[in-house]
C-alpha cells in the first residue's frame, strides 16, 4: 500500500524541553494507525508538528511524497490533511453551522452545502442543532462537531487527538463506531489515544510513545497482546 504520511527523525523542543526525541513512523493509505502513550509522552506534540503548528528541528515530514516540514499550518488543509486537536477546540461562540463552514474554509463555496449534508448524515445530532451556539453543546456533541468540522475539507488523512477524552463510555463507543465508519469509507486515520484498549481494537498498526521516543510498534493485535503494553496501558 502507498505511504501517505512518513515522519522521519523529528525532534521538537519547547524552549529547553526536548519533547520529541527522534520519532519516526509512517501511515499507509487506508490504514488506522494509533499512537498510544501516557500523559506527557508527546502524542499531541507529534500531531501538532505534523500539522505545522510546531516545528521540528531535524528530520522530515512527507505527505503524499511531498515534504511538508516548514510549510505554514494553514496551507496543509488543502493538501488533504485535517487535525482534530486535543480538547476539540471548536469555535465556542459560533454556531454549529458556522463551525462547519470554517472547516470548509479552503473549499469552493459551492460545495459547502453538500459537504454539510454529508456531515449531517454522519452526525444527525448536529443537524438538529445546526443553529445552536457551539459553546452550549454537550461534550459529546462538541466532539462530533470537531470531527464533522474536520471532515468538511474531505481530508485524505484525519488526525484525531484523544477523541474519547472526557466522554461517557457509551459515547466513547459511538465515537469509535464513527471512526470505523470513516475508515470503511476510505479515510486514512492517525489516532492518538490514552484509551489504549479501544484504540488498539480499531487500529491496523500502533506505536507506543514514551517520554518523546517510540518504544514499541506492531499491529494493533500484537500490541494488545504484548506484556509491556498490557502492564503499562491496559491495566494488567
Amino acid at each position, binding site marked *: 500500500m502507498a505511504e501517505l504520511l512518513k515522519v522521519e527523525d523529528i525532534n521538537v523542543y519547547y524552549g529547553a524541553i526536548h519533547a520529541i526525541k527522534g520519532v519516526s513512523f509512517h501511515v499507509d493509505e487506508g490504514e488506522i494507525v494509533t499512537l498510544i502513550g501516557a500523559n506527557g509522552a508527546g502524542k499531541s506534540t507529534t500531531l501538532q508538528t505534523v500539522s505545522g*503548528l510546531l516545528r521540528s528541528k531535524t528530520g522530515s515530514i512527507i505527505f503524499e511524497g511531498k515534504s511538508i516540514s516548514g510549510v505554514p499550518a*494553514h496551507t496543509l488543509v488543502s493538501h488533504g490533511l485535517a487535525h482534530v*486537536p486535543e480538547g476539540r*477546540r471548536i469555535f465556542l*461562540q*459560533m454556531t454549529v453551522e458556522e463551525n462547519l463552514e470554517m472547516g470548509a*474554509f479552503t473549499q469552493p463555496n459551492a460545495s459547502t452545502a453538500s459537504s454539510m449534508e454529508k456531515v449531517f448524515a454522519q452526525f444527525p445530532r448536529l443537524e438538529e442543532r445546526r443553529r445552536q451556539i457551539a459553546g*452550549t453543546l454537550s461534550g459529546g456533541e462538541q466532539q462530533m462537531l470537531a470531527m464533522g468540522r474536520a471532515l468538511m475539507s474531505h481530508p485524505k488523512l484525519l488526525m484525531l487527538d484523544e477523541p474519547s477524552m472526557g466522554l461517557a463510555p457509551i459515547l466513547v463507543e459511538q465515537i469509535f463506531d464513527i471512526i470505523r465508519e470513516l475508515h470503511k469509507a476510505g479515510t486514512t486515520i492517525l489516532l492518538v489515544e490514552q484509551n489504549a484498549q479501544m484504540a488498539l481494537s480499531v487500529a491496523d498498526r500502533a506505536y507506543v510513545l514514551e517520554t518523546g521516543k517510540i518504544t514499541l510498534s506492531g499491529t494493533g493485535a500484537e500490541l494488545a497482546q504484548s506484556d509491556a503494553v498490557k502492564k503499562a496501558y491496559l491495566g494488567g
Partner: protein
Amino acid sequence: MEFLSYLISGISLGSVYAIIALGYTMVYGIAKMLNFAHGDVIMVGGYISFCGMMYLGLNGWLALLLAMAVCTVLGIIVEGLAYRPLRQATSLAVLITAIGVSYLLQNTALLVWGATPKVYQPLIPLANADGQPNALRLFGGQLSISYMSLLTMAACIIIMVGLTMFTSNSKMGKAMRACSEDKDAARLMGINVNTTISVTFAIGSALAAVAGVLLCSFNPTLMPTTGSMPGIRAFTAAVFGGIGSIPGAFLGGLLIGVIEAMAKAYISTQLANSVVFAVLIVVLLVRPAGLLGKYVPEKV
C-alpha cells in the same frame, strides 16, 4: 429643549467615538492587542484629507476617500512592520511598541505639517452662503440639528450595521471571529491568520480616517496631537461597552459622548473628563467585562 440639544450633540460626538472604538475593539478582538497608535491614525486621516482638499483641489468626499485609502495602507504597514514580528512576544512588549508607533506618527506629522494648527474645511459647511446655519430646524426653530451631526450619526449607524453584517455573514468576517477565538484552531481550518489580522487593521484604519474627517469637521483645528484625546476616549468607550464586542463599541461610544456632553453642560467643562472616567470605573467594578462583554461557558 436645551437638554435635547445637549443630548444630540452628545450623540453625534459619541458617534465619532463609536467609529473609533470599533477599530480598537476589532483589533483587540482579533489580534488581542491594544493598538494605542489607533488615535494617531485619526490624525493622519485628518491631515491627508486636509491636503487632498488644499493641494489637490479635491472636494470633501473625495478627500475622505483618499484619507481612507492612505490610512488603510498605513494600518497594514504598521501592523506588518511593527506588530507582526511581535506575535509571540509578551503583551507588554506589544503595548510599548504601540506607544512607540503613536509617537512616531505624531512626530512625523509634526515634521511634515508643522506645529501650527491647520484650519479644516468641514465636510458639510456649518453655515450656508447666506450665513444661515446648515441645520435641520425642529419645533419652530427652537431645536436645530446641524446636517453635519445628522451625517455623523448616519455614518455611525451605517458602519455599525455594515460591520455586523460583514462579521456575521461573509466568509472573511467569520474567519475573523474564528481567529479571535482560537488562532491555532483557525490555522487548522486553513485560515491565514496573518492575512486576517491585516484585514482587521485595514478596516480599523479606514474607519479611523472616517473618524478623522468627522472629528475635524466639528472641531476644525488640526494638529499632530488631534487624535490623542479622542483616541483615549474611544478606547474608554470600547472598554466601557466590552472590548472585543462590536455592539459594545457602538453603545460605549454613544454613552461616553453623551456623558461628556452632559458633564460639560451641567457640571463643568474641566471636570468632563473626570466624570467620564469615574463612570467607566464604576461600570468596570460592577461588570468587569464591560456592558456587553460576554463570558462563554467552556466545556471540557
